[in-house]
């Protein structure tokens, strides 16, 4: 539960902040000049803050929409990402955010209208070609929906955009109410990330159990929303092949593979400086002492193991899906 809320002075009377004050009431409210005053100082402990994260309300003033890294795609040529939220309420031990940010607090950027204008401008640069906008890169798109109203706003925004302006929401949560309240649209993909249940129980603290998430995906699919499945990153455990096979069996027994929009596979790979910070936070974590190797400033599973896992999962997935729906995110 959020106990402390930091708010940029200039946003104190912003309608979304006023609504938040009504909702959260008597928490510790602290005003700051800029969100970075709280979020960016070096002397912070991500691991400790994860126990009791605060909410920092700020305004994103520049670089609102960024080009996605090469390889981060689900079939489009033009790919962007944007982040209304930094950090995530879940505590996935493999998550690169632990190495990227000094603070585990949630930063919520409330200037949605500016994001929308930046999205429209990015779309306009490509002469009517399809453009994909990914919303779950630096956070979970839906996990804090009751506080942020992010999906409520952007589902309406993309309803008014051309049909080839795509939005991908990416989540491990079950907060799907805003989607169920609306008519489905083909240009919004609701993507859900999965790891095998054994992996999830061990390394994804706070994430709802597989069964509940799968029910949420089923509901969305029945409602007509395009849903995506994300296996990113693939996590190595000694019996990874058997665990992923069982996971795919469970998922595709419950879902209609013909109506799955896309499936992507990603590898566990992160900059060495992030890895160093993460191992400093959790020195006894076996995940960080597995079959990893450092090459060219990046830490990843050994090349042959990585390829074996990607190819192995790809083959298993091809039992359920045509190859054109399957994407490999390797960047």
């Amino acid at each position: 539960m959020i106990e402390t809320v930091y708010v940029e002075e200039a946003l104190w009377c912003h309608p979304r902040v006023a609504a938040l004050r009504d909702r959260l009431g008597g928490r510790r409210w602290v005003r700051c000049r800029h969100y970075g005053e709280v979020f960016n100082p070096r002397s912070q402990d991500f691991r400790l803050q994860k126990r009791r994260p605060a909410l920092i309300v700020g305004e994103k003033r520049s670089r609102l929409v960024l080009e996605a890294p090469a390889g981060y795609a689900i079939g489009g040529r033009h790919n962007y990402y944007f982040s209304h939220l930094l950090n995530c309420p879940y505590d996935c031990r493999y998550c690169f955010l632990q190495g990227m940010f000094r603070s585990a607090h949630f930063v919520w950027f409330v200037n949605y209208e500016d994001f929308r204008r930046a999205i429209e401008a990015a779309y306009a640069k490509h002469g009517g070609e399809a453009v994909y906008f990914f919303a779950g890169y630096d956070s979970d798109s839906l996990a804090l929906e009751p506080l942020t109203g992010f999906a409520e706003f952007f589902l309406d925004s993309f309803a008014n955009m051309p049909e080839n302006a795509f939005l991908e929401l990416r989540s491990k949560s079950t907060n799907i109410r805003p989607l169920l309240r609306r008519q489905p649209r083909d240009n919004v993909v609701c993507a859900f990330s999965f790891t095998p249940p054994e992996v999830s129980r061990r390394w994804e603290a706070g994430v709802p159990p597989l069964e509940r998430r799968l029910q949420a995906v089923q509901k969305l699919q029945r409602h007509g929303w395009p849903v995506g499945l994300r296996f990113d990153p693939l996590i190595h455990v000694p019996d990874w092949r058997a665990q992923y096979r069982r996971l795919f069996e469970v998922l595709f027994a419950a879902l209609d593979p013909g109506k799955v929009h896309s499936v992507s596979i990603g590898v566990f790979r992160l900059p060495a400086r992030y890895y160093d910070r993460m191992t400093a936070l959790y020195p006894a974590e076996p995940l960080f002492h597995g079959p990893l190797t450092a090459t060219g400033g990046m830490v990843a599973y050994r090349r042959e193991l990585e390829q074996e896992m990607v190819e192995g999962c790809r083959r298993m997935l091809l039992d359920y899906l045509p190859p054109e729906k399957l994407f490999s995110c390797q960047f």
Partner: protein
Amino acid sequence: MTAFHLYGNAAGTFLIVTGVGKVRAAAAVGFLAARAAPSCWINVGTAGHPDLPVGTVRLAHKIVDRDSGRAFYPQWVIAAPTATDDLVTVSRPASEFPETALHDMEAAGFCEAARHFATLEWIHVVKVVSDNRGTAFQRDRVGELMAASLPVLERLLADLGELRESVRDPLPFDVERIAATAGLTRAQTRQMERLLRRWQALSPDTLPTEAELCRLDRATLLPWLRRRLRD
């Protein structure tokens, strides 16, 4: 004869009397850090406030240095044992309070220095209101006022101590003793610790004993650990 009065107990808690002003507060932090390397830092003292009654105890959730405008935000990863408030550190004693906040003369200097020795979760400021718009500061009441802060201070120390214990990831060895026995440099000691942590994470049941490790010397200890980890 030292620059500061310093008291300590067997539990590893130290009290240093900083004196007045942020420069003295910062110097005291440096002085103590050089001698005791505490893991947690608390600045305790008096402060003025426009409205709060004299004797009210508050923790600070934001500390602003009035001179520089710089702000510090102690991070609450434990429940605060009493209410929290804004605090402004000023350079000269003031009887007027332009802001609805605690006003003191040390906290910003203390935080500026302490953040070099600990993260913001371990740095806190406890203040007792000593004066307000209706009551002037009385030096002879300071002892009595500080006594009022003790329950909050003790609770804060206990909670931070528990927090410290809960995040310790101890190796079942005295790393420093093994390093001293083998004659390792600081860099080699860090390497040894990393290798032992890796071993502990991967196969805790097969960890060597401290006695086994102490039988190895500077030339053989690290290669032996690497070889065993490869196996």
